[in-house]
């Protein structure tokens, strides 16, 4: 068998390489030849093709994402310790603690193989957090599926949920929240977005860099196998080897036990200060880790591929480079620290191997069986890939969508009609009780969870030594974004921001997971750029920075893209977790108030979706000043109001139902006389929340609301076993509970 070495490539310039099958365009291939001054070897072709893929290079999104880094709000500059571009952003949360958090998509693998796709999605994002030097402390997830009753949803959802639980539970990370949404646009293309958060001391941040010639490159964790290298089979077949074409699975298989051990091993290594740089192995495996480390470091690195511990000894070198085997890390370690490093790996029974070293050159050289099979300038692989300025075009159907105003839809008017609308919303899969899903996740492990689903935000205590807490919310709204990507993305941002504020925390920073169709479709690209602009403007207005995130393109079935779905994760801090707030009405006899202004806003609403299968008009108005004022009241009312719940999908009616059900008690409500009852109950105007407050604290709430200019409307009182809306309807809490909890059980079976 001939090894396609650098010298072989130089002497056989006319060999035809399967670059198109690996996803490279003609001009991209030509650029590789130009960079190298010869044709690439098969190994080099493997590296460039995966690293220049949309997934790894961000080639369509890069020029648009720049505005996140260029437009950091002034007030956020001091807290942002690590910004965009590293594995995850890091923010200073006070008391010497730093927090890193990020959301990432694993949409396509989860569609092909729901359990492993979702499981490795959790594993990957947790490794990103670990790589920054942090102990991962919680996970969340945002899931979107086709219609709940669609046969494919019955295939995909249970597997995705079991995969998230199977991996996260075994890692010992509490799952503290997220969202589950059903919409026909995701049939054939579910969205599985996972968020992880980690905590470290501010002086404990690690970076993905390989400084210092002579330092050793150590690969540790799981052995390298043939998973996740479906694409490499093209290369294998191209070589016409005696073994013939290899068939490899394209979805990776996760081993959460290996990752749990790897986490503990890494944290012990970090505590002993034994690494100069570190990178996890995710997409593009060793190709990515070696080129990114070298590119961010001195520039030179020599790797001996034969030393990589393999699960399958028949792997070809290009397969080793492309393998996406999970639970692996790559560290750069000073020679004097290698012994101590290896000792900790031995303690945890983690395989660790020196596979190369940092050199004083400027090339990444990789050897296989004594032949040089890769010799590339690492920056050209990792950081200087192609960048596209894709054409944009406002969707042709947008004006028609806007003209199709929900004001024209028949609406409920009488009390009984309003009640049956309420019940229809409560049982609808998007609003129904999600405990069938969330009860499959461990929310208690680590002993620091102070709020979890179905509360507005998840909240954890930073650790036992402090009362400092972190709140996190993850929200998106594909329908709003379809109607208006700029404002839709901002509404997702506002909702997550409001959810964090409702819990009592102060919003601090965001991560985003941007799920869109094909960037080669100018209408999708327009949606994407509008959403980015919306998020960037929104973050400036709210004064919180984007710390990092993920772009997932090509979410479509045939030529039909999903509803554009930016999912926003907002991180907040609370100085004393004892003062956290649930959505639950906690006791009888408290007063319920509505904060904010209600307008008639039904474009993209849950009501229009459930009652009419309608999507049209404009999404609710975005008002950042109102959001900031509301968040200020909610934050300053910590210790004043005993429950708070943001208003979003389903409006006031759904919020009241959820606060009643969470608290196991009813409420007596009188709607304002000057608003149509249907609008008061179901409109989705943003910048609103309901609060429950003891009678003797109403004055303090009123003065806070007045100070911030937030309208305050008395709605009624908590208590009883019914939800009464005066003059309209009365419904038993028991009936609401049965309606809400029945949906998932009847769709997906009994739990337990």
């Amino acid at each position, binding site marked *: 068998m001939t090894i396609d070495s650098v010298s072989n490539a130089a002497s056989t310039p006319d060999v035809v390489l399967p670059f198109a099958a690996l996803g490279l365009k003609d001009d991209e291939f030509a650029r590789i030849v130009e960079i190298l001054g010869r044709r690439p070897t098969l190994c080099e072709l493997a590296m460039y093709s995966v690293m220049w893929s949309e997934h790894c290079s961000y080639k369509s999104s890069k020029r648009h994402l720049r505005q996140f880094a260029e437009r950091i709000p002034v007030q956020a500059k001091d807290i942002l310790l690590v910004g965009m571009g590293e594995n995850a952003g890091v923010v200073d949360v006070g008391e010497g603690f730093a927090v890193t958090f990020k959301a990432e998509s694993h949409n396509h693998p989860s569609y092909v193989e729901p359990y492993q796709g979702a499981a490795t999605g959790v594993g990957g994002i947790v490794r990103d957090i670990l790589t920054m030097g942090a102990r991962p402390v919680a996970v969340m997830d945002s899931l979107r599926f086709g219609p709940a009753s669609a046969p494919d949803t019955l295939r995909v959802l249970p597997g995705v949920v079991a995969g998230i639980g199977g991996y996260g539970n075994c890692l010992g990370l509490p799952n503290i929240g997220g969202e589950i949404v059903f919409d026909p646009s995701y049939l054939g293309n579910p969205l599985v977005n996972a968020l992880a958060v980690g905590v470290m001391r501010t002086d404990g941040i690690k970076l993905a860099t390989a400084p210092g010639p002579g330092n050793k490159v150590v690969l540790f964790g799981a052995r390298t196998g043939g998973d996740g290298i479906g694409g490499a089979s093209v290369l294998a077949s191209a070589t016409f080897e005696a073994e013939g074409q290899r068939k490899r699975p394209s979805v990776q298989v996760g081993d959460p*036990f290996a990752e749990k051990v790897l986490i503990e091993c890494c944290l012990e290594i970090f505590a002993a200060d034994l690494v100069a740089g570190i990178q996890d192995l995710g997409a593009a495996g060793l190709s990515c880790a070696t080129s990114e480390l070298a590119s961010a470091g001195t520039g030179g690195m020599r790797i001996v591929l034969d030393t990589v511990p393999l699960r399958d000894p028949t792997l070809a070198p290009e397969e080793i480079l492309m393998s996406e085997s999970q639970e692996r890390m790559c560290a750069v370690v000073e020679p004097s620290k290698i012994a101590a490093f290896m000792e900790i790996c031995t303690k945890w029974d983690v395989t660790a191997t020196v596979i190369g070293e940092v050199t004083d050159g400027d090339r990444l050289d990789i050897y296989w069986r004594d032949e040089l099979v890769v010799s590339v300038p690492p920056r050209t692989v990792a950081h200087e890939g192609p960048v596209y300025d894709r054409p944009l075009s406002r969707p042709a159907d947008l004006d028609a969508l806007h003209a199709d105003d929900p004001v024209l839809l028949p609406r409920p008017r009488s009390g009984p009609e309003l009640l049956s609308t309420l019940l229809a919303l409560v049982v609808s899969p998007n609003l129904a009780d999600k405990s069938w899903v969330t009860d499959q996740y461990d929310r208690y492990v680590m*002993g620091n969870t102070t709020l979890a689903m179905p509360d507005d935000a998840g909240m954890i205590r930073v650790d036992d030594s402090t009362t400092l807490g972190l709140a996190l919310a993850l929200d998106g709204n594909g329908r709003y974004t379809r109607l208006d990507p700029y404002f839709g993305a901002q509404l997702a941002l506002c909702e997550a921001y409001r959810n964090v504020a409702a819990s009592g925390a102060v919003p601090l920073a965001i991560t985003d997971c941007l799920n869109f169709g094909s960037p080669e479709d100018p209408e999708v690209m327009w949606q994407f750029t509008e959403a980015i602009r919306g998020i960037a403007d929104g973050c400036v207005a709210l004064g919180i920075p984007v710390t990092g995130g993920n772009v997932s393109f090509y979410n479509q079935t045939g030529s039909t893209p999903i509803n554009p779905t930016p999912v926003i994760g907002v991180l907040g801090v609370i100085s004393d977790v004892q003062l956290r707030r649930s959505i639950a009405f906690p006791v009888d006899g408290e007063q319920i108030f509505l904060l904010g202004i209600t307008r008639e806003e039904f474009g993209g609403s849950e009501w229009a979706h459930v009652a009419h299968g309608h999507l049209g008009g404009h999404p609710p108005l975005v008002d950042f000043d109102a959001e900031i004022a509301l968040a200020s009241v909610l934050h300053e009312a910590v210790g004043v109001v005993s429950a708070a719940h943001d208003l979003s999908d389903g409006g006031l009616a759904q919020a009241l139902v959820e606060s009643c059900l969470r608290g196991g008690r009813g409420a007596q409500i009188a709607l304002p006389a000057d608003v149509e009852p249907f609008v008061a109950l179901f409109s989705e105007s943003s910048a609103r929340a309901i609060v429950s407050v003891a009678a003797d604290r109403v004055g303090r709430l009123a003065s806070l609301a007045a100070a911030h200019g937030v309208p305050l409307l008395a709605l009624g009182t908590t208590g009883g076993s019914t939800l009464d809306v005066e003059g309209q309807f009365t419904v038993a809490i028991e009936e609401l509970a049965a309606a809400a909890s029945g949906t998932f059980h009847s769709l997906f079976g009994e739990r337990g």
Partner: protein
Amino acid sequence: MTVSVGVVTFPGSLDDRDALRAIAAAGAEPISLWHKDPSLHGVDAVVLPGGFSYGDYLRCGAIARFSPVMDLIIAGAREGLPVLGICNGFQVLCEAHLLPGALMRNARLHFTCLDQALSIENAETAWTNGYAQGSRVVIPIKNGEGRFVASQATLDELEAEGRVVARYLGGAPNGSMRDIAGITNERGNVVGLMPHPEHAIDPLTGPSSDGMTFFTSIVKALIAA
């Protein structure tokens, strides 16, 4: 007098820190034990914590049961050393034959995390003496393989000897025979429990503080001994 309680960390243990925290909160000295430890460091009692030791590969608890530290714990338990196995720890105790029966996949095959109502049926063990007989408590369960099974003869023997320590109220969420959530050995020093009392020591981070009594009970028992 200070008593010390050890918590074993196997590879894949998850609730070890929680157990150590609960022990400290109960006023005992928490001691972390490594699965390869050749000694129990003089601890007065041991907790085998929840988690997925060795990934629960092969069978839950089947590999952990052969850890070096388990030889010492098995020998100690036979001499009266108090041992509490929580969740995965319960599975390890069954695999080690310190307790009868086995824990199988939940009846409907789902991992299930719930705030679970239980009744304490035996308030005389080293780990439950602080409870009133029959008291109702709410403690989280979180397991995928928590369905207790045993032969009819073993179940009858457990019932007859009062060795059912805790029972699920409102029906077992996982299909456990006779709604059994926890059992003890003949001597009452070894207790296996599927629910997690270490997650119910503070209403801030759990559904109640009902689980604390497991840890204060052992401190009381050790001081009295």
